[in-house]
């Protein structure tokens, strides 16, 4: 599938931002526009775009609500772009079903990288058995994890966490989503169990504990398995560093 044929729906009530996105994305993708929640729902149903870039602060309804409504009937990748930087807002959007969350302002490079990851994931066949990043290989069919070719022994829980991350590689998984996937709904608030297990998992697979390369912590939100990207800009940061 050629990327230039992909159609992206840009939803923002600010004309300046729509224009900037249209110009930035226009030479690679076909860009559709919507200015509010109702328009978005109609456009997705009528035009079947391949991806939605969604602002949270829409005039008629909240972006989180738009996400929830879309998820009722479609698995279309949704990248939320917002000035809201509080973790609660991110979690709300991600839990509602958004694939990624980007805080405004962002660089075009960052946005393009996220779009590529989201598109790749949505078009990847589910039964892809082997995942590889750097020195880490995960063979889902054989439940085998190796680092630099050496097999690593994981506890069932650790393996389940890794598997869940691999299945959503590149996507931020909230604590709640991970806990529900691995332990079930009864445990979805027991964040510390997750932390301990992720910590143990990292000890087994990460080359440098102080600077994890595979499992990246999204502070206050959750974890993401980083997938390699050719550009340096693919370091997926929420914020371009503080002060």
């Amino acid at each position, binding site marked *: 599938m050629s990327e230039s044929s992909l159609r992206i729906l840009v939803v923002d009530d600010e004309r300046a931002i729509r224009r900037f996105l249209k110009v930035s994305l226009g030479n690679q993708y076909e860009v559709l526009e919507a200015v509010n929640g109702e328009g978005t729902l109609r456009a997705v149903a009528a035009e079947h775009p391949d991806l939605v870039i969604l602002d949270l602060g829409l005039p008629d309804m909240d972006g989180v609500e738009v996400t929830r409504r879309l998820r009722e009937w479609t698995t279309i990748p949704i990248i939320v772009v917002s000035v809201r*930087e509080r*973790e609660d807002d991110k979690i709300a959007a991600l839990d509602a079903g958004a694939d990624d969350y980007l805080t405004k*302002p962002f*660089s075009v490079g960052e946005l393009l990288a996220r779009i590529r990851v989201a598109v790749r994931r949505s078009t990847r066949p589910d039964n892809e058995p082997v995942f590889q990043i750097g020195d880490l290989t995960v063979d889902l069919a054989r439940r085998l994890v190796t680092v630099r070719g050496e097999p690593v022994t994981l506890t069932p829980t650790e393996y389940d966490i890794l598997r869940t991350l691999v299945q959503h590689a590149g996507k931020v998984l909230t604590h709640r989503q991970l806990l529900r996937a691995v332990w079930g709904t009864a445990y979805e608030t027991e*964040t*510390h169990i997750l*932390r*301990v297990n*992720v*910590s143990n998992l*990292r000890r087994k697979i990460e080359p440098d*504990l*102080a*600077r*994890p390369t595979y499992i*990246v*912590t*999204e*502070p*206050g939100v959750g974890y993401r398995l980083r997938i390699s990207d050719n550009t*340096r800009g693919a*370091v997926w*940061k*929420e*914020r*371009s*560093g*503080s*002060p």
Partner: protein
Amino acid sequence: MTSDISRPDPDQLLAHVQADEKAAKRGKLKIFLGYAAGVGKTYAMLEAAHQRREEGLDVVIGYIETHKRIETEELVSGLEIIPRKRIEYHGVELTEMDVDTILARHPRLVLVDELAHFNAPGSRHPKRYQDVEELLTAGIDVYTTLNIQHLESLNDVVAQITGTLVRETIPDSVIDSATEIELVDLPPDELLNRLREGKVYIPEQAARAIEEFFRKGNLTALREMAMRRAAERVDDQMRAYMQTRAIPGPWHATERLLVCISPNTLGERLVRSTRRLADELNAEWFAVYVETPEHERLSQAGRDHVAHTLRLAEELGARSKILPLSQTAPGVAGTLLQYARKHNVTKIIAGKPLRPVWQEWLRGSIVEQLIRRSGNIDLHVISSTDAGKLPAEEAVWQPHRPYLRYVWSILLVAAATFLSALLGREISPTNLVMVYLLVVVISAVYLGRGPAILASILGVLSFDFFIVPPQLTFSVSDAEYLLTFSGLLVVGWVISYLTARAREQADAAERREADTAALYALSRDLAAADGMDAVLKVLQTQIEQAFGREVVVYLADGGKLQPNALAADVQPGETEIAVAQWAFKNGETAGRGTNTLPGAEFRFMPLKTARRTVGVLGVKPKESESILSPDQRRLLEAFASQSAQAIERVQLAEQARQIELLKAAEKLQNALLNSISHDLRTPLVSITGALSALEDETTLEASARHSLVETAREEADRLNRLVGNLLDMTRLESGALQVKHEPCDVQDLIGAALGQMEDRFLERQIRVDVSNDIPLVSMDFVLIVQVLINLLDNALKYSLDNSPLDIHAGLHYGEIQVAVMDRGIGIPPEDLPRVFDKFYRVQRPEQVTGTGLGLAISKGIIEAHGGRIWASEREGGGAIITFALPLEVSV
């Protein structure tokens, strides 16, 4: 001259306006004045009340005595009656007007019968007119009844006419302050008829006395007094009206009278006479007592008498004043005249001297001095019908020194006689007189006047008996000795008088000195006291020392008294607080030893300054029997006034401090605005500049374009960081920041922080050392990541691009410490504590950009976690910033 007279005096006009204003807030008092019981005052009052009610006024009965008269009772039945308060006194149940209920009910008009009534002990005020005063102050109109014989200034005249002394009296000022007086009149013959028909209520036990009272002559005299009094009122009102409207008329030149109070019973008579004279002249009047050294010699009763007379004068409408003996104008007369001239007094009223003529002759009469030196001031001398006893003189003549002193003086004379007898053979008797003189002087100095006089008399006798030939007889051989005797006697008396007088003056000076010293100590300590607590402490200690009394202070806030007693070891009860409230509200001393609520344990004095009442000072004697003397009361009042000023000073200082703080906050805000506007604009300048340059694409080389774009991008990032910081700071300061504690892995923490800053560490070597023994630590992960990022950012900015950074994490005494260390320029030692201040930047590297908020935010976050953060110098150069979080969080 005429025009001069007709112009209203501005002072008087002002007084009228002020009186009007005061009266507007106060309730109006209407007195139904009669000359005897049975003239129909109560009936008239009730009728007027019904009329008011028909006009739509809210009328209630506060207290009424119908004496079971049918017509009266019929009138009462139509009106709302406030139930009386029951007061138990010595097993007898008495009923009194319930002031509190009336105040709470707050009607427009209340009827109160028998204004001159004395309340049962245990009531709020001893006298009913004081209750009425309080009702008026609360803005309630009052109708009341009064018989003329209860008027204080007429008290003695009534007693002279009727032979009955009326005990229940009210001050004249009450009737003067009444808005309206209605004379309820009935010709004496008709009244006597009514009496015979049994229509006048007479208490059985007093029936005889009252029959004596109800004689036609008496009644006519009383009636005349009542009418005259009412007419005087009308006259006054007329005059006041004419004055405000500048209507020309026969004005009295304003007279001012001064009555000299002396410590004898004539005082009361003097005061009453002066009051009548003042009334007739429509004059202002003063009652003045000059405190001479003799005042200190007065018996307690004598001093009380002076205080009583002065109080009476005040009740009768005078301004009373105690003057110390003037330094510039000698003598009592001089002091009086000086004061009189200063206050434009036109007439001085003095009592006829009561001393024996020879004393006048010896000491000089004050009245005579006044006459001689008064100049243009008239002098009225009032006589006394009965030469009242002189408690003061009595006190002087009584041997109030212990008898031991007289024994001593006798012994001294005996010793002198013995010595003289021994020496008598060698020395002539005339010279031996010196030995006796010595004894008299010693007695005068050490034993007082009485013993000295005794010594001189005994001295003469023993000299005559034992020394002068022929010895052992009182007969004298040589007439020359008679001169020696009289010389010895006179010299003895004079010396004893002078010495004793000097001594008494010294005593008086000492007492005043002690008072002054106490006041000085108070004001010195108050001046040194800073802060309310210190002031109250000083007050407490000083009053305890000077008066032996416990102290409480209530402070006022926003016109209300705070219920918490300060400077007190125990909190006084509800009733005491109510008394304090009363004293505060009315601005008068109340409680123990006063006319208001005398049953209280404490005596409460309002702490007044020139501008307001700052609170109430309460004192309670440690021994329940102790009573304040008038001198002590004066001193205590001086204390109260001093403390009021000190308290106000502290309060003003506190206000000033608050304003200072506000100013500081404002200054900080200005700094913030300046910094923000600078920091926001600078990146915008670069961005706008770069973009406008890019618009003109043709002239730019590719590399230049690239550099412009990079600049714009970097500046935009900087702007974004700044906005983020400002938001964080705002959240932190507005208290919107919520710390969500959860167990976190420190390793993960550092990893997350480094991960977020990855693209800025490309050239840097970063060494991370996390000790293995760190458990999960409770913290808000996101916020602490933010702190770490801020610290790393700081370290990056202030160190060279190729220098390494170190991060250490470890356990230290129950807390986890994370340190970020650089090899940069370091922080000047004097700035170490300041780096966490808002907008503080180490100024040296010019190229370093930032808001100066990063570390301040970090500090805020760490402190919200109950941790701490500090900066230190690193050995070998560079800076260390460390934060510590407690392992155990008590949430």
